[in-house]
Each structure stands twice: as structure tokens, then as C-alpha cells.
């Protein structure tokens, strides 16, 4: 515990010392000043004006307010100080004291109140560490988005807001469910250990976005980024993305996947300003894959069954297909046409309210906001309610000392469906459509009970259940609270030396309760999946400290320098507890706190404690000569508790330069149209520490754990992992070259970047050969290269007094290649001899994400078509004169293809479809991604903006199509199977139905589709009322807008949505599993400030 406090202690000591240091200057001596204050126009006394003594650093030494007669009497300590008088409505006046003792002051009224003070100088971005660097002097590849650009979107989170708007940043939504996160990739695949999300830094402090990975969250993976939701989009001032390693190196070991810098809004000097915004969004679930109706299904299944055995399905034993009106129970319960997808889908609604208050004076300024979001998901049973508040306070004690506190709190309640995300929807997709939602009794009368039989021909829970019962009666409720107090102190030691110290506490806790009632699983009461409940709690507690010394010496006009030395530390602790019990007496006793059965297989209680710490030191400096030559150099050293001694410290150097050609003398002649023309180049390192559930923080130990059960009353111990002596940092080395143009008085901005990134010592979890006795370990396995380019263009092609047209465009490309791989890593996966699998091979110097399979050629239309043919198309005849039939995987499987079976191309014409006929089918990574869109502004009051995003190239495996047309089980199928082969001579591309046998859905080109698309992502129309209208409701400004999102997608893709994220792990294929696709959303919004 003591060690933990060390860095905290030092930080506090520094804070105290600084505050004390400043008070030394005080000297004793009492001087009394008196006076009266009147207004300049009415000559009446000014009541309540603040009269203060201020020292040369503008620190307030003493002060008071004027009385009812406008009089004051103030003791001051030093005659060299100043007397300052201020009150709202009057101009502030300042006087030297000297020998003067009586001050009769006339204050001037401020003529008319300022509407709003906009402090928009040159945008300052920096790398988030504390250096303030003009955007035009940036040496690294960084993009910034102002909140203004995204405020109209119906985004519940930042990630949604920036989707498709920044070059080189590929964001794909995990699903359309409320609270589900996004996967963010900056410049292609970097890490392959599953974690590719960037580091998020809020107001200069890293923001942890992961819940404890061992935490028994049904949705742990998908909700990683849902935590980002804790920050309301309306609180964001800017979002910057650091892309190259020179920019990210200053963030060291966490930055290999890029850095997302967010700054929140701060108070401004001026009278209080209240802003209110409202957004109401209607969400519509796009129509999915058309499925068979109950009637179509119940004629399809008996045929599927009979094709295998040659005998009709026995409807005495499979009463689900009996359709006998004399047996009303089965006739009614299995005689319906239920659209299960429709039954669990509804129209979603999202309401956002945000209220903020900003203001401030000389000394202090504030920004306070409160927001409330309520979202009703498009799937029945999904819901989100979130409250978040933020208070940012700035207080200048003097010119020297400046305090800032950022205080944010959010509370959310997420209602999800029981089980993994998407489970219920996928069960609804395959659930037999002839069964009823609610049960009919034996007389054929509809009852209000869910129809959840213990088992039927489709199987039993968890394979199949009643999706409506699951959506309505089962539940998964997550409550989470997060509070992040952040204190910052800035101390200007001298004009050129500044000390900046931060301490942040990040405390979050959550509770998840999931419940599976008997009425949903339908199972008998002796089983543990009846009234099964899991309740879990987690707490995370992080303390981050950061202290930096910033030097900005005055080197004259010709050159300038900024330098920074920083030490920081982080301590993360996560604890969690969970309990799983089952078999409470009623489907309405839903919490694990109720006494219930606990001791049985599958039921458990658990607890976990994980801790990790890092310390780092950073030196960073930026030097500028003649406004033309800029160089930035940095070095960060990170120590991380997750590595063993000897491997603990990582060094992350960085150098970047910018050369402003337009600043040269000979370029001056172009200066009337060329504002800026610069070259940038950079090189830097960043890294990744290991991350793995459970023991992820202690992998360099081999940990002996107790076994979960005793043997003969004795407790056992077994090592859970081998000791990882060789675990080291995954290092990313990146170089970047770029050009920036600014032309025609800022009307055309172009940034072009080329980059090349090498990730060595790739950390990934590898499957070990089983004879090692362990299943998997985390190893540094190989080297991966990424390279590509990004173009970002922003222009104002037309500008007049009435109409402004802006146009933005971005495109990026990324190619990766594997350069080396550990011999322990399986370079091949996927079994081409069983249905549904694609072969995936890792090949050196080739991109990741390629997959291989058979070439689908349609369906054997009759017996003649199944005869094997040689290269010239002639039939292959065996020595005894009979034609040879096509076979599959001779001799191991040796299946003879029958008429109606899927036909695969026999590449080598040997009459045998096997691994030798497997060909390249595609690669999941897109060639180009990007977006573009115009904005029209008419008379400053009407704005119309549209945004398109696109992806070119890349292939997707349409697994949803595979699953809904494999004709292999009792699962419901898509209407495509209505065209299936039935009798010899049928020419079709859908094979015959075959229950549980055959090779009709091998991994083949049949399910591979191009994922190229162009999406009309959003359109926004905004009307800003003019001042006179606004003032009628006492508002300073008022505007309304309408936004449509995900309006139209142009694609040849036949699945629900072509925007599929690449899979995790090294194989990286893109598979469409068709969970809730991105929704169509229509938003009406209003914002007003007072």
C-alpha cells in the first residue's frame, strides 16, 4: 500500500510547495484606503462592486464589496500593489496605489453587452502532453475535428460522431444495439492481440476504456467502447487523432494503436450563458434477410429429411409437422406463420437533453453541464438511460498560479438481452416459424403463456428457445457509475518556465445482473439453466499523476523553443465479484441475492483482483527557426509492472521535422495565393504491453491456482500458465512523410501523408500444441508491416456574401504484410473438408486477411452432370467401362456427389474435390476507405450539409447467407431456398436440402462477396433564427435542425450491411454474422443559448 501512495504523495507535496512558495512574498504593513464609487452616466453609487488589492502577478491579496452608498474601506499590505474595481455592467478599472489613500472613482458602463466571447485564435493542438503548438507548426500527422462539425449528429458517443470523417481512421460499429461500442482502427491493423482500439486521452489524461476483462459481463467485448459514452458529445470541444508514431511516442507504451485526444469545453469570461440542446431520434431497423413462412418451412423440412433417408419424416414422432386438426395442441402450437424477427423488433427512439452553463470573470470561469439520454433499442428488451454531468472550473489565483478542476460523473443503466449480443436475433432468424409465440392449450385456446417447450425437433436450450420470451422475460441489466475528478495546477515559475501538475482519480463501478427465467428456457426444474441468475459487481480504481516542467525561453523573433520534462505514474486496480445461482422458485425472483441453488456444475461464485502500474518519464522539445525549419524531438521511458525484471522498461524515441517552403524568400512571389506549403517527416516508436483476461497482468509468473473442486476431501493446485520469461514490449516503429498546402486565403487546405509502420515482437495469444499441457500462451510472435497514404482536403469552392459552399474529402489506403512469424504460431487454420470453413493461411510478405476455398459452380442438375470429366471435358471412364462419379475428399471422406448437390470446380480434373481444388477467394481488408461531403451555408442562417463515406475493395464472407441457406438442419432458412433443386433437370444455384449430411455448404465462392459500398451517411439541414426572432424568447441564439443518418447504401452486397469489421487475431478475415445492422436514424434537434 505504501508504494502505491508514493507517486500520489509526491504530487501532493509539489502542489503544496507551490502554493506555499507564493505566499512568501507577502510583507506586513497596514495601509488603509477609502473611497466611493459612482456610475459615469447616472452618477449614482455603485453597490456591490468588488474592490480588491492585486499584486504584480494579479493575485488578489485582499478585497471587499462596496456598501449601499458605494463606499469602501480596504486595508492593503503593499503600496506597490494595485487597486482594482470591477462589477458586471461596468468596465473594470485599475489604479496604482503609491501614496494615494482616497479613491473616488467613476466607473464607465459597458456600452452594450457582448453576446459571446469567442476566443478563436490559431487552433492549438499539440500532442496532448502540455506543449502548445500551432496547428500550422505541427510536425506530425494529426487530424483535428471541432465539435461544431459533429454536433448535429444523433451520435450517442464520440466514436459514432467521428465515424468516416477522418482519413486513416476506420471505425465500424459492432452492432446497432443501444450502448454497443465501435471498433476503431487507426491506420490499419497494428496489434493482433485483439486490442486495436486507440488510447483515449481526455484533457491530457489517459482515460481507461476497458472494464475488467474477466468480468462476467455478457457483453464485455462489445461494451469496451461503450464507456466512451460517459462523455457527452456536447461537452467535447475538440477531437484530435495522433496517427504517426512520432506523435504517439510521447504516450509510449499505450499508444501503438494511435491516440485520440479529447478536450472538453471550458468556461469563458463573460456573463453566464446557458445553452440548451435537444435531440430526438427515431431509429428504424432495416429489413433483414427474407425468411420462410411457417407453411413454407413445414413443407421444406420433410423434404430435407427425406432426401437423406429416402423415407418420409415420421410425423408421429415429429409432431411439429403433423398438422392434424384432431390434435389441437400441436395443430395450433405448430401451425402458425410467425415472423420471429418482426416479433422482437420495434421502432427505436432516442432522446437527448443537454443543459450547460458557462461564464466567468477575471479570476474564475466555469463550464457546467448536465445531460440526460434515454434510448429505446430497436430490439425488444434493449434500452439505455444515461445521466452525465461535468463541471470544469478554472481559477487564476494570480498570473502565476492557475488551478483547474475537471469533474465528471456519469450514471447509466443499460438493458441488454440475456446471453451474447446478437444471440436472440440470430435465434429468431433460425427459429421454426410454424411454432407459436404464445401457447395454445389442448383445446386449441390461446393462453397468455409463452410457448417454450422443453425441447422439440430443433433441439433445446441453449440451441433454441422462444426469442420473444427471451426478449421480454429474460434480462441483463447493467448499472454503472463513473466519477473522474481531475485536478490541475499550473505554476508560472518565471515567464519562461512553467510547472504543470495533474492528479486524476478515475473511479468506476458497475453491477450486472442477468437472469434466465424458466419460461424462456423451458427446461425442467432440475436443471441449472432454469431461473438462472448471475450477478456481478466490478470496481475499477485508477490514480494517475503527471508532473511536467515546460520551458519556453524567449529567443527573439527568429527562433523559438518549447521544451518539456515530465514524469507520470499510473496505478490501476480492478476488483470484481460474481455469483451464479439457479432454480429459484419463480421466474420473478431475479437476483442472486435470493437464496437459491449454488452448488452444481456451471454455478459458481467468483472474485478477482487485478492490479497494474506504470511509471514513465518524458523529454520533449520543439524548436522553430525563422518560421521555416521546425524540429520536434522526444524520448519516453516507460516501466510497466506487467513485465518481468529485465524486460520492464521500454524506450520510445521520436523525431519529426517540418520545413515550410513557402517561408523561403524565393517563394514570396506566390504568397498572394499560397498561404502555406510545408513538408513534414517523422519517425518514432511506440509500444504495447500485454493484455490478456484473468492473469493478464502477471504473465511472467507461473501461477498455481486451487482447483475448483476437491478430490477425496483434499484441495488441489495446478499451474494455470507457464512462466513467460521472454515476454517483451510489442514495438511499433513508424515513419511518415507528408505535405501540407494552404492556398487561396485558407480556401483550400490539403494534407497528404505517406506512412510506413513496422510492428515487431507482435504480441498475441498462440495456441500451443496440446502435448505442452497448456492450451495457449501470450508470445511475441512476429513482424508486421503497414504502409499506406492518406489525403485530406478541405475547400471552399464558392464564397459570396450570401452563399458559402464548403467541400471536404478524404481517402486513405492501407496495405499490410507479414514479415516474420514464430514457428510456434499455426500458419494455417480452417478445415476445407468440413462444411462452412474457409482455409486461412499466413504467408510471409503477403497481406493478412486472405482466405481460400472452393469455387462454386452451381448445382449438379442430373446424374449425367455428376460424372467426372477431364481437362478436355470428356467423361472419365474407369477400366471396367463405367463412368467415374465425382467424389469428395477421397479416400478419407469419399462422398459420391449426387444430383442436386453443390458443384465445386475440379481445378485439377481428377474427379476428386479435395484440398487440391482450393483457390484464393479474397481478402477482407478494403483497398480504399474515406468520405466526402459538401456544406452549403446560405446567409449564415441556413446550413445544409451532406456526408458520404465509402469503401473500395475487400471481400466479405457472408456467413448469414451461409447459415440461412445451408439446408442442413431444422433451422429456418431464407426465401432463397425456395429455388432449391428438387428433381433431376432442375437448373438452379441452390442445392437440394439435405439434413445433417452432404457437402453443400463447404467454404466456397458462393458466400464470398465484395464489400465495396458508397453510403449516403448523413444529411443535415439547420436553420438558425436571426437575432430578432431569438430575442423574442429571450434567447441569444436559436437554431433547429434535421438530420438523417444511414440514408442509402449503394452496394452489390446481398447481406444486410457491407460495412463489416475485420475479425480479431492475425487471420483478420471479414465475416458478416448479421447481428443488428446499423440503423436508419432520423433526428430532430434544437439548440438555444440564453
Amino acid at each position, binding site marked *: 500500500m505504501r508504494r502505491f501512495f508514493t507517486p500520489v504523495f*509526491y504530487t501532493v507535496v509539489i502542489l503544496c510547495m507551490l502554493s506555499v512558495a507564493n505566499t512568501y512574498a507577502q510583507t506586513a504593513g497596514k495601509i488603509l484606503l477609502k473611497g466611493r464609487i459612482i456610475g459615469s452616466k447616472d452618477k449614482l453609487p455603485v453597490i456591490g462592486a468588488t474592490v480588491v488589492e492585486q499584486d504584480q502577478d494579479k493575485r488578489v491579496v485582499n478585497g471587499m464589496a462596496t456598501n449601499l452608498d458605494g463606499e469602501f474601506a480596504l486595508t492593503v499590505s503593499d503600496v506597490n500593489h494595485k487597486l482594482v474595481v470591477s462589477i458586471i455592467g461596468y468596465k473594470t478599472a485599475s489604479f496604482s496605489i503609491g501614496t494615494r489613500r482616497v479613491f473616488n472613482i467613476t466607473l464607465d458602463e459597458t456600452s452594450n453587452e457582448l453576446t459571446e466571447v469567442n476566443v478563436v485564435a490559431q487552433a492549438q493542438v499539440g500532442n496532448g502532453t502540455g506543449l502548445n503548438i500551432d496547428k500550422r507548426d505541427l510536425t506530425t500527422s494529426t487530424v483535428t475535428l471541432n465539435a461544431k462539425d459533429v454536433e448535429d449528429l444523433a451520435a450517442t458517443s464520440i466514436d459514432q460522431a467521428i465515424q468516416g470523417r477522418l482519413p486513416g481512421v476506420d471505425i465500424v460499429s459492432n452492432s446497432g444495439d443501444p450502448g454497443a461500442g465501435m471498433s476503431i482502427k487507426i491506420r490499419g491493423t497494428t496489434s493482433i492481440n485483439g486490442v486495436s482500439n486507440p488510447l483515449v486521452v481526455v484533457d491530457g489524461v489517459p482515460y481507461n476504456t476497458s472494464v475488467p476483462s474477466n468480468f462476467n459481463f455478457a457483453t464485455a467485448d462489445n461494451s469496451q467502447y461503450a464507456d466512451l459514452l460517459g462523455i457527452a458529445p456536447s461537452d467535447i470541444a475538440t477531437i484530435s487523432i495522433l496517427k504517426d508514431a512520432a506523435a504517439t511516442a510521447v504516450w509510449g507504451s499505450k499508444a501503438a494503436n494511435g491516440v485520440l485526444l479529447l478536450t472538453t469545453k471550458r468556461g469563458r469570461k463573460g456573463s453566464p450563458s446557458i445553452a440548451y440542446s435537444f435531440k430526438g431520434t427515431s431509429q428504424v431497423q432495416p429489413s433483414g434477410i427474407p425468411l420462410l413462412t411457417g407453411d413454407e418451412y413445414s413443407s421444406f423440412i420433410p423434404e430435407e429429411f427425406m432426401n437423406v433417408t429416402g423415407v418420409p419424416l415420421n410425423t408421429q414422432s415429429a409432431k411439429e409437422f403433423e398438422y392434424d386438426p384432431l390434435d389441437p395442441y400441436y395443430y395450433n402450437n405448430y401451425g402458425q406463420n410467425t415472423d420471429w424477427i418482426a416479433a422482437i423488433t420495434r421502432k427505436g427512439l432516442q432522446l437527448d437533453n443537454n443543459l450547460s452553463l458557462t461564464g466567468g470573470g477575471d479570476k474564475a470561469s466555469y463550464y457546467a453541464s448536465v445531460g440526460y439520454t434515454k434510448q429505446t433499442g430497436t430490439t425488444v428488451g434493449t434500452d439505455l438511460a444515461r445521466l452525465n454531468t461535468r463541471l470544469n472550473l478554472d481559477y487564476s489565483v494570480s498570473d502565476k498560479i492557475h488551478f483547474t478542476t475537471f469533474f465528471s460523473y456519469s450514471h447509466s443503466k443499460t438493458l441488454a438481452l440475456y446471453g451474447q449480443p446478437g444471440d436472440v436475433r440470430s435465434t429468431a432468424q433460425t427459429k421454426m416459424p410454424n411454432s407459436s409465440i404464445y401457447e395454445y392449450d389442448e383445446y386449441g385456446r390461446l393462453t397468455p403463456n409463452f410457448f417454450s417447450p422443453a425441447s422439440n425437433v430443433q433441439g433445446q436450450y441453449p440451441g433454441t428457445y422462444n426469442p420473444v420470451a427471451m426478449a421480454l422475460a429474460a434480462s441483463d441489466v447493467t448499472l454503472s457509475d463513473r466519477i473522474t475528478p481531475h485536478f490541475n495546477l499550473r505554476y508560472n515559475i518565471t515567464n519562461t518556465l512553467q510547472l504543470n501538475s495533474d492528479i486524476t482519480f478515475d473511479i468506476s463501478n458497475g453491477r450486472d445482473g442477468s437472469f434466465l427465467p424458466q419460461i424462456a428456457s423451458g427446461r425442467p426444474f432440475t436443471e441449472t439453466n432454469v431461473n438462472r441468475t448471475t450477478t456481478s459487481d466490478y470496481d475499477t480504481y485508477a490514480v494517475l499523476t503527471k508532473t511536467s516542467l515546460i520551458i519556453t525561453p524567449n529567443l527573439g523573433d527568429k527562433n523559438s523553443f518549447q521544451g518539456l520534462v515530465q514524469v507520470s505514474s499510473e496505478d490501476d486496480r480492478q476488483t470484481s465479484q460474481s455469483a451464479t445461482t439457479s432454480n429459484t422458485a419463480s421466474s420473478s425472483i431475479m437476483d442472486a441475492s435470493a437464496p437459491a441453488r449454488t452448488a452444481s456444475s456451471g454455478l459458481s461464485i467468483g472474485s478477482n483482483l487485478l492490479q497494474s*502500474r506504470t511509471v514513465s518519464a518524458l523529454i520533449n522539445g520543439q524548436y522553430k527557426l525563422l518560421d521555416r525549419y521546425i524540429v520536434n524531438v522526444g524520448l519516453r521511458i516507460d516501466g510497466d509492472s506487467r513485465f518481468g525484471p529485465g524486460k520492464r522498461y521500454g524506450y520510445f524515441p521520436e523525431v519529426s521535422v517540418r520545413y515550410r517552403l513557402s517561408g523561403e524568400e524565393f517563394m514570396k512571389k506566390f504568397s498572394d495565393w499560397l498561404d502555406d506549403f510545408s513538408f513534414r517527416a517523422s519517425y518514432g516508436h511506440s509500444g504495447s504491453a500485454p493484455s490478456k483476461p484473468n492473469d493478464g497482468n*502477471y504473465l511472467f509468473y507461473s*501461477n498455481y491456482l486451487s*482447483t475448483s473442486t476437491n478430490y*477425496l476431501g483434499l484441495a*488441489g493446485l495446478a499451474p494455470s500458465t507457464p512462466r513467460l520469461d521472454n515476454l517483451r514490449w510489442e514495438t511499433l516503429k513508424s515513419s511518415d512523410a507528408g505535405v501540407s498546402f494552404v492556398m487561396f486565403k485558407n480556401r483550400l487546405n490539403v494534407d497528404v501523408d505517406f506512412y510506413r509502420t513496422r510492428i515487431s515482437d507482435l504480441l498475441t495469444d498462440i*495456441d500451443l*500444441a496440446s*502435448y505442452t499441457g497448456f492450451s495457449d500462451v501470450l508470445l511475441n510472435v512476429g513482424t508486421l508491416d503497414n504502409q499506406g497514404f492518406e489525403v485530406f482536403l478541405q475547400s471552399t469552392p464558392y464564397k459570396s456574401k450570401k452563399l458559402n459552399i464548403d467541400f471536404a474529402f478524404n481517402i486513405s489506403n492501407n496495405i499490410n504484410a507479414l514479415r516474420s512469424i514464430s514457428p510456434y504460431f499455426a500458419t494455417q487454420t480452417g478445415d476445407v473438408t468440413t462444411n462452412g470453413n474457409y482455409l486461412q493461411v499466413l504467408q510471409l510478405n503477403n497481406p493478412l486477411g486472405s482466405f481460400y476455398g472452393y469455387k462454386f459452380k452451381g448445382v449438379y442438375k442430373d446424374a449425367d452432370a455428376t460424372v467426372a470429366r477431364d481437362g478436355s471435358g470428356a467423361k472419365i471412364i474407369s477400366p471396367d467401362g463405367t463412368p467415374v462419379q465425382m467424389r469428395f475428399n477421397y479416400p478419407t471422406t469419399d462422398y459420391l456427389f449426387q444430383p442436386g448437390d453443390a458443384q465445386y470446380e475440379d481445378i485439377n480434373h481428377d474427379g476428386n474435390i479435395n484440398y487440391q481444388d482450393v483457390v484464393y477467394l479474397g481478402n477482407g481488408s478494403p483497398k480504399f476507405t474515406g468520405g466526402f461531403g459538401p456544406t452549403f451555408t446560405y446567409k449564415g442562417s441556413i446550413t445544409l450539409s451532406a456526408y458520404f463515406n465509402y469503401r473500395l475493395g475487400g471481400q466479405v464472407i457472408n456467413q448469414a447467407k451461409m447459415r440461412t441457406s445451408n439446408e442442413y438442419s431444422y433451422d429456418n432458412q431464407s426465401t432463397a431456398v425456395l429455388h432449391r433443386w428438387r428433381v433431376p433437370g432442375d437448373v438452379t444455384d441452390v442445392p437440394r436440402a439435405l439434413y445433417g449430411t452432404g457437402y453443400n455448404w463447404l467454404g466456397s465462392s458462393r458466400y464470398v462477396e465484395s464489400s465495396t459500398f458508397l453510403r449516403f451517411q448523413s444529411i443535415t439541414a439547420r436553420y438558425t433564427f436571426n437575432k430578432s426572432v431569438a430575442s423574442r424568447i429571450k434567447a441569444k441564439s436559436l437554431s433547429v435542425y434535421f438530420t438523417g443518418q444511414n440514408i442509402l447504401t449503394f452496394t452489390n452486397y446481398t447481406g444486410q450491411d457491407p460495412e463489416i469489421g475485420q475479425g480479431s487475431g492475425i487471420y483478420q478475415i471479414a465475416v458478416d454474422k448479421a447481428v443488428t445492422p446499423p440503423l436508419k436514424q432520423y433526428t430532430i434537434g434544437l439548440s438555444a443559448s440564453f
Partner: protein
Amino acid sequence: MVTMAMSVCSCNKFLNLRPQNGITSDQFWQTKEQLQGAVIGIYNGLLTGPAVNYFEWGEARADYVTPGAGVSVDETNIISTNILPTNGIVDWSAFYRIINLCNNVIDNAPGVLTRDKTLTSTVLNGYLAEAYTIRALMYFYLVRSFGDVPLTTKYLGSDNDLVQLAKSPKEVVEKQIISDLNTAEPLAVNTYGNVASDKGRVIKTTVQTIQADVYLWVDDYADCIAACDKVIGSGKYGLVPGDADWFNNLYVVGNSVEGIFELQYDAQSLNPFYSFFATTRPRYLAYINLIDNYSFDELDVNNVDIRSYDVAIHAADQSIYKYIARTPTSLRTSDASYAHWIFYRYADVLLMKAEACINAGRGQDALDLINQIRTRAHALPGTEQFPGVDDKVALTSYLVAERGREFAFEGKRWYDLLRNAKRDHFARLDLLTDAALISVPPLNVQSALSRLRDTNALYFPIPQLDINNDPNLVQNPFYK
């Protein structure tokens, strides 16, 4: 600057964190309690890991089981001997996990003796014997099921120890098994002082019983008979009398006088068999005419072989009753499914000796032993055979049939068939092909027969995962 310097100094201390949920390896192997924990960890592995495989590897390919309503595709493929390297049932990882735990104890236990003065070498030897024996048993399962397998006897403690092994020929593996058992035999304790531990953990007679089985497998009949005689001569075991309580004593309660090595499932750790055989959607059913193997008495319906009705098969629904029944008329509940898994019992020792006798030219001794089993079981005259004492073929058939009746669904059938079939260069392949005709679905019989005639196909393929992960592993011949 001072504070910075101080921070840097305390960095290393600050960064030292240890997991709170276990004992790290640098603090392990210090006390005898930790040693005992590590040994019990091995048994726990036996209990939870490969339990499914004991049954599926030993029974599914043989003639007694047919698919039930809840059968999976992998299981159907095993039953119809259509086995691919990707079939989940050929996954051997649970066996190697236990082998690695044994290797750990064998490598590191002797060091505890110097660190913990309260540990005696007798106790240490007992622990070592347990590790050697269980390692041998695991390799014995592997070599019988896969033929050539990778052989490792060194604990993988760190990523520095990672190696990529090739397969070792089965003769080498068998040699290792015999050597391990020979090492274990003198070290093993005679008793732990209570019945449950003597049946549930390795004692001297456990080692000897496994030795008998291994010697029989490698056709070393003299050593097999010698090992059997040691167990018989120990006087610890006998047959449970074939009375009304027979089923209850032997299978329901367990740890009977007959039990030699039984996995001790209990209310805390249930066996996995309930979901296999439970009546709603069983994965496996008994072959429908299995009852014919036991014959029947036309005159007296109550005169039955005690091993037949409601033990091997519940005739009404073909369900396999040994592990799920409490009495002939009632089932265990799912939360009371803790019938022991019996690796070896005394009847097995008697019949192993009988089999060795047949092949050692002692036909009459063999018949006497078989009759001892039959008498206890009230076997019916319809199943009695009268082979000549020198007719090895007929004696073997009789013995295999009797073993089938005695050990139905105890995970022995396939190994019995294979062991007797492979003797003398597969002279009795008919045992396997006849078996295939019984339980393989009619559609697949021809292909199953052709596969079984290729003796390479009698062993499982190396799991595809391991082929992928280790370039040195070569797939078994039939599956290439």
C-alpha cells in the same frame, strides 16, 4: 528534481506486483502441503478433463452404442468410424495436460525434501509413484487410441522450455509406460488408511493392475500373469456377490471390495455422464439388440444375467443405465450424478489373466477364470461356450464376448476388440469388422468396413489443431 530522483529510485519497488489469487512458481515447491496440492491437482485433472474421452474413445467406435436423439455430428462420425482430424472427440489435450502436471511433480517434488524438513522420503516416494502411474495410464490411453504419439517427460515451466516434438513410435511410448510403472511399483504406498483413498488414489496394487493391462497390450503374457497374481495374491479384493445389492454396491455407492481404481465423483464434482445418457435427449443409446448378448431363459423370465436388464440397458428406451440409475426402477437426479468412473476392478484382473492364459497355452486356467465371473453374474446357459482348451481362436472369442458382457459401457470395449484383433499381425480382424456391422448405421456400413480393413484407420488421426501448431507432427498414415 529531488522528487524525480526519488521517484525513479522507488520505481522498481512500485512496479513489483504479484497475483493475489494463487502461489507463484518462485514460491512453490517449498512445503509438503504444496506438494500434496500438486498431486491432488493431478487427480482433479483426471476428474474434470478427459472424463468424456474415457467413455467415447473406449466405446463409441465399438459395437455397443448407437446414436441417440441428442447426438452431435462429431459423435455420429465416431460411431460410423468416419473420423476426420477435425473431429472434436479426437482432441487429446486433456490427457497431455495431466501428463504435464505429472511431469511437474516428477521434476520438482524431490527438491521439496531439502526445503521442508518435515517431509519424509516415504511420503515423497508415494507422491512420486502416483505421478509416474498416472502419467503411464495417460500415455497408455494415448498409445492405444492414436498409435504413435509425441512423448514428453519434462515439465514445461517456462516459455524457454517450448519445443516442437515429433511423434515417437508406439514401441518407444510403450517402453516408457512400462518403465514408469516399474519405477512406481516399489515407491507406491500399500494403503492410505481409508477405503475411499485406497480406491481413489494410486497404491501398489493399482500400479500392478495397470501393469497387467499394459503387458497384455504388448503381448507379454508371462509378466501379465505375474502382475495379475500379485493383485490376486494381495488379498485386498474380491468379487461383489451377485445378489440383490450387487448393482447398488458396485456402481451406485462405489468403492466396493471389487474396485481397484475408481474416480471419486461426488456431489461437488459431478460426472459428465448425465447429459450423455439422461432420458430426454440422450447422446448415446445402447445398441437395440444388446440384450441378446446375455441370452434369456424361455421358461423363467426372472432368471436373468444380473449384468443385463437395467444395468447395461434399460430395455424400454434403450438407455444406458450404469451411470444414471439409482435402482432398476429409478434414476439419479441431475444433481446427484456422481457414479464413480471405474478404471479397473477385480473382475478385470481375473479376465486379463484369463486372456493371458489363453495366449500362454493355459486354456483350462482361462476357462476357470471366465467361469468364476459367469457364476457371480448368474450368466445364462445360452451364452455359455465350450471351446477346446487349445483352441485359441474359440477361447479368444469366448473371452471377448464375456468381457463385453461384464464391462459393457465401462470404456473397455474398443480396446478389448483392438487388442485381440491386432495380435499376430491382425489375425482376428474379424472381431472388429463383425462389431462394425452391428452398430454402424446401414448407410455407412460399406465405407466403415473398408476403413476398418485398413489397419491404419484403427487409430485416431492426430488432432488438426496440433498438426497446425507443430510442423514436426506428421498426420497418421490413413488420414494424410
